[in-house]
């Protein structure tokens, strides 16, 4: 393929031209005259990030398996090219055909994190597609959003024609057939969207009217016409062993974040940590058949030539056939000199044994995610990890030769006190002490242990028990980070402990976008117009511009962040049904405040609601 959307002059001037030329191994080119529907799958961030995303690879493979469909890829042009495209009026293009995005039937955008929202506007802007769904015509593609952020789509509702709620494997075929039929009959865009809204899992925001109370909270959210469902239930693929999964994933030329074969071993999580959205919205846990995984591992390695394979899932240690799968991989990969990159496993005798087989112990590190510093607060968040387990795991690892430990915590969790924060420092200190107790002086490599503690700021997310919780202010966050640092400095083993913390203002903004309502759309648009883009990249994040945008729109950020919500408040995402009921989440919120833990799905069913999908862990 010789055709490129960008001239040689431009490609030679910009950073990493390989981001924009397509032509990768296993990328798919079809004759556009032989397909009926053209889809652009977009990850609104730079190529290296977008290419590392498994979801797009799955859907790209699925769509292209349909004879009548050609699915291509789109990523955000990096700042350097963005500037040139605006100056020279070059329309955004897909990688495969190098043709303008606006010529497509569908523009499907995956929404993996809130901080990509201004990049959605960049994609629309460079494509020449109106920002507001209401202003689009058949000259524009149908703009459809998917991914975890659709569990509160309201802050970006104005920009999308449709949101696909849930897993992509189940309903796209139906939606595409509907589209073909509507186009054949010469129906209007509006008529198509009305019919699309009746397809299970589809949310078409323009057919809903939201009204507000005087205090700014929601009074009601109702469909504006007949035939539009008041409640939308997520789509879910119950048979994850017999569904779409790419045997030939696209292999990028340049190094990307996830430069390896990715094997998704299960979906969902049994643990039910109360801060975690993924742990709720992907319920129930569904494991892939281990024989399927073995087959795919071999075929995918053969078809890509990757030198590394990694396992992907939430809480991978809970996958029931993990030892069998890892044994198989160690055997297979050893022969072919392929590295195995392990997900973070619970530290115990099994995982340490596996780790010592596949990693260089001297170079690798142990990872613990206690998330909170005290047992009391770990009970609040339902993180089952105890200090005893951590110290025991660390001791075993130190005996095995490891000397590096990474610890992840959150600051600003509900009910957190100074004592809980001091617990972080205390735990780090105890781990260091464990090292000195377990490893005799003559055996210590470099004489010491390296502990790296990192804190992020807690952001309440929709469809979690903490969706009602108040979030800390930026100032409170910074005070907490300061206290953590001071407390670590006071420890006996402080020289062995390094402490990192997150930016506070980006967390505050993420808090607004995560639990925002439809009023936030105008702020995002204003921020974009002021130049905000690539907000997930600290070097391009301009908090001051965002503050201006909020002020000019007359929107109070504190309303969305600081406020604790009452039980009866209608939350912006209440019209969605993710499988887990609001009653269950409320029960969990009450148990959190009472510092009571909840056993995981395999120990005892808590009646969260996900069993109605009729499979997975609920019926093991």
């Amino acid at each position, binding site marked *: *393929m*010789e055709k*490129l959307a960008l*001239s040689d002059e431009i490609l030679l001037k910009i950073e990493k031209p390989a981001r924009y030329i397509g032509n990768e191994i296993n990328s798919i080119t079809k004759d556009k005259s032989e397909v009926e529907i053209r889809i652009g799958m977009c990850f609104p961030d730079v190529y290296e990030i977008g290419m590392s995303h498994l979801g797009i690879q799955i859907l790209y493979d699925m769509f292209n398996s349909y004879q009548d469909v050609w699915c291509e890829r789109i990523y955000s042009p990096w700042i350097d090219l963005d500037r040139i495209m605006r100056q020279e009026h070059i329309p955004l293009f897909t990688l495969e055909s190098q043709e303008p995005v606006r010529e497509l039937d569908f523009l499907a955008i995956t929404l993996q994190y809130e901080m990509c929202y201004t990049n959605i506007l960049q994609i629309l802007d460079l494509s020449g597609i109106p920002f507001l769904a209401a202003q689009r015509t058949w000259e524009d593609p149908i703009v459809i959003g998917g991914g975890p952020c659709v569990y509160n789509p309201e802050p970006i509702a104005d920009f999308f024609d449709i949101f696909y709620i849930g897993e992509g494997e189940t309903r796209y075929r139906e939606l595409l057939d509907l589209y073909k039929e509507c186009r054949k009959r010469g129906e209007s865009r509006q008529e198509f969207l009305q019919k699309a809204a009746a397809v299970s899992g589809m949310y078409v925001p323009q057919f809903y009217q939201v009204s507000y109370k005087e205090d700014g909270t929601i009074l009601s959210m109702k469909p504006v016409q007949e035939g539009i469902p008041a409640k939308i239930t997520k789509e879910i693929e119950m048979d994850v062993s017999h569904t779409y999964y790419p045997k030939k994933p696209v292999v990028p030329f340049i190094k990307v974040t996830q430069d390896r074969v990715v094997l998704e071993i299960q979906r969902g999580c049994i643990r039910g940590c109360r801060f975690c959205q993924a742990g709720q919205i992907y319920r129930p846990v569904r494991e892939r058949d281990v024989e399927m995984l073995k087959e795919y591992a071999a075929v995918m390695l*053969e078809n890509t030539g990757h*030198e590394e394979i990694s396992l992907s899932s939430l809480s991978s240690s809970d996958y029931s056939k993990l030892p069998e799968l890892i044994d198989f991989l160690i055997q297979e990969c050893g022969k*072919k*000199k392929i*590295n195995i990159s392990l997900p973070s496993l619970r530290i115990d005798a099994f995982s340490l044994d596996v780790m010592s087989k596949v990693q260089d112990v001297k170079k690798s590190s142990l990872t613990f995610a206690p998330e909170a510093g005290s047992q009391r607060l770990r009970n609040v968040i339902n993180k089952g990890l105890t200090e005893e387990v951590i110290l025991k795991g660390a001791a075993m690892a130190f005996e095995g030769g490891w000397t590096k430990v990474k610890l992840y915590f959150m600051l600003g969790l509900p009910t957190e006190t100074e004592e809980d924060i001091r617990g972080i420092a205390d735990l780090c200190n105890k781990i260091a002490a464990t090292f000195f107790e377990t490893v005799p002086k003559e055996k210590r490599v470099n004489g010491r242990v390296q502990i790296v503690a990192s804190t992020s700021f807690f952001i309440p997310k929709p469809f979690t028990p903490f969706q009602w919780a108040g979030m800390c202010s930026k100032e409170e966050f910074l005070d907490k980070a300061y206290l953590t640092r001071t407390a670590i400095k006071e420890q006996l083993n402080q020289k062995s402990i390094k402490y990192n913390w997150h930016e506070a203002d980006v967390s505050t903004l993420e808090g607004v976008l995560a639990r925002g309502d439809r009023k936030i759309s105008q702020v995002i648009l204003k921020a974009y117009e002021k130049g905000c883009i690539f907000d997930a990249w600290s070097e391009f994040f301009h908090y001051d511009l965002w503050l201006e945008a909020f002020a000019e729109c007359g929107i109070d950020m504190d309303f969305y962040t600081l406020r604790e919500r009452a039980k009866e408040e209608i939350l912006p995402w209440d019209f969605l049904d993710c499988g887990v009921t609001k009653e269950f989440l409320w029960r969990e919120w009450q148990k959190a405040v009472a510092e009571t833990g909840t056993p995981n799905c395999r120990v005892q069913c808590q009646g969260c609601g996900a069993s109605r999908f009729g499979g997975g862990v609920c019926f093991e």
Partner: protein
Amino acid sequence: MKLRIKFAKSGVMRFIGHLDVMRYFQKAIRRAGIDIAYSEGFSPHQIMSFAAPLGVGLQSRGEYMDIEVYSCTSSKEMTERLNRVMVPGMEILSVTMLEELTKNAMASVAAARYLVRFREGYEPEFDWVEQLKVFYQRPAIPILKQTKKSQLEVDLKPAIYSLDIQDKTIHLFVDASSSGNIKPRMILDAFLAEHGRVLEDAALEIIREDTYTDIGTDGQPEYVPLDAVGRIF
């Protein structure tokens, strides 16, 4: 066993830089199921070495890499097998076997042949063909080469083995050894500077025709393409 692989890089692949071409071949060799040898150690890597890095934007009909294998079939079969796993723009031209003592591809490089043209819209608006011939007839062509620490004056003339112009295409045969490697741009840059002009980044279209090694004896150079020292098997 040491094999030498000759390949061409064209089309959109000209925008893939040298390091990424290396990564591309590491994966391609796995896809083709070549029985390549690995280094020892905790993270073994394929034993592979490239001749002369090709700059981004250039095309080539004569790139080379050497690999070490435990077993192999025939030149023809291996060429076909590798071509089955290439992307458009990458083509395997030959696979030959080297004697065990042959210097590796990188150390073997002595010269390279290039075709250079001005891209449309970038051709200088004076009689550059005549002027370039005059320029080349000089006894010395000194230029300032920017090194990490300072500027260094070097003479391009002895490094240009030949320069012809046909149909506005400049045929260059130049030193490409590690000690005296010169790039076609350097010559045109110096030439245009003399005429008070600047060579713009995208001004030239360059094709590397082939890469050569020197098999001459007694100080008499004899340049042959890098695969001429290998044998078809």
